[in-house]
């Protein structure tokens, strides 16, 4: 049996290693930081972890509908493609920092990219 993406990336340990780096990048990114201004940081870190788990091909129970509901209030406040692109950049930069091979980064990016229309409520 061939290894899944999640296994190739190193499973939950890889998510744990990535979550602080990713969240720090997002919070420091002026293009999107304002969406995170008033949130509870611990709850948000848990959400970032769930997001990375999904992008890394790990177990998750998100549906397109969850993605829509979870981001609807942000779409109302102007969340658009440019912001989604910024998150995608931060995701790739996080994985590069962790020395993940480019082809695996591309696989994870494709999974994250597949949520774009749901996240943006289209």
């Amino acid at each position, binding site marked *: 049996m061939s290894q899944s993406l999640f296994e190739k990336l190193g499973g*939950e340990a890889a998510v744990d290693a990535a979550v602080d780096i990713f*969240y720090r990048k997002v*919070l420091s990114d002026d293009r999107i930081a304002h969406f995170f201004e008033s949130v509870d*940081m611990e709850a948000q870190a848990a959400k970032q972890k*769930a997001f990375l788990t999904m992008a890394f091909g790990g177990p998750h129970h998100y549906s397109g509908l969850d993605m829509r509901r979870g981001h609807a209030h942000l779409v109302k406040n102007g969340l658009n493609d440019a912001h989604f692109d910024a998150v995608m950049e931060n995701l790739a930069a996080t994985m590069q920092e962790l020395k993940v091979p480019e082809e695996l980064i591309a696989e994870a990016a494709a999974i994250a990219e597949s949520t774009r229309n749901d996240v943006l409520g289209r």
Partner: protein
Amino acid sequence: MPNIRYDGQIYSLRDGQSVLECLTEHGASVPFGCRAGICQACLMRAEVGRPPEASQKGLKPTLKAKNYFLACICNPEETLSVSLPGNELSRTPATIVGMELLNAEIMQVSLKAHEQIEYRAGQFINLYQGENLARSYSVASLPTEDPHIHIHVRRVPQGKVSNWVHDALRPGDTIDIQGPGGDCYYLPGSPEQGLLLIGTGSGLAPLYGVVRDALAQGHIGPIRLFHGSRTPNGLYLTDKLRELTRAYSNFEYTACLSGSHVSKEFASGRVHQIALNEVPNLTGWRVFLCGHPEMVKAAQKKAFLAGASMKDIVCDAFTSRVIPS
């Protein structure tokens, strides 16, 4: 096979079944989400018995130490009595054995609990005025060194409980307390880790407890305590803290004043900004933030961006937090 005791019922665990599967199969009400040990929605606590280490994956060290676990990935080898977080606290009477003003607005209350309470310095207890009115106060004492529980009650304008404590409560009185709760305490195991502690007002109470606990347990890494107030009148325990800096070379204490005309013996400015300027790289550090909610929130973000891991930032914002009874 081991049993699971929960909410007054006993359930027997089938081979290979998780605690969550066992409980939900019998219709017990337990929140859950991913069922993969990641989302932490099914967080529970073992009151009796030890949960397997594998079921504590990803939890904060403070939660692990208190036998919290994730029900969905918990396959226990022994019988466990489990509860949901927040339901485990009962009330016990305590007698006031001492009251001492530490500054114009902060009263140290010493309590002797009628039943022994196992707490760690820095956690909080709820103090009840009568049947239903409670406020949370952090514990400044050290169970191994102080015979009684010490809390610091700041007189809050219009504060029902704090004014009652200051004006009406006297040594010899008996009141109800509940707890302890909260994650703000020293964790042994990383004696070389840097510790940064930032507090405003009576947020010094838990930090004083954590500092003394760390020193008593032989912590050798740097310990930096910053206490902030607007004016010198809001500072307290300064002599005791300066004594500690003389006794322990790895401990430093900085009193910070945010008001105007600050004399040279104090640092001038907002306490978390001074602290983060002094310790700009927090990679690998553990950070304790206690007191004013806005300070705690701002400092949490700064500390995280300065390299502290989310798991190593302990926040104790002094809002009107009350444990549901």
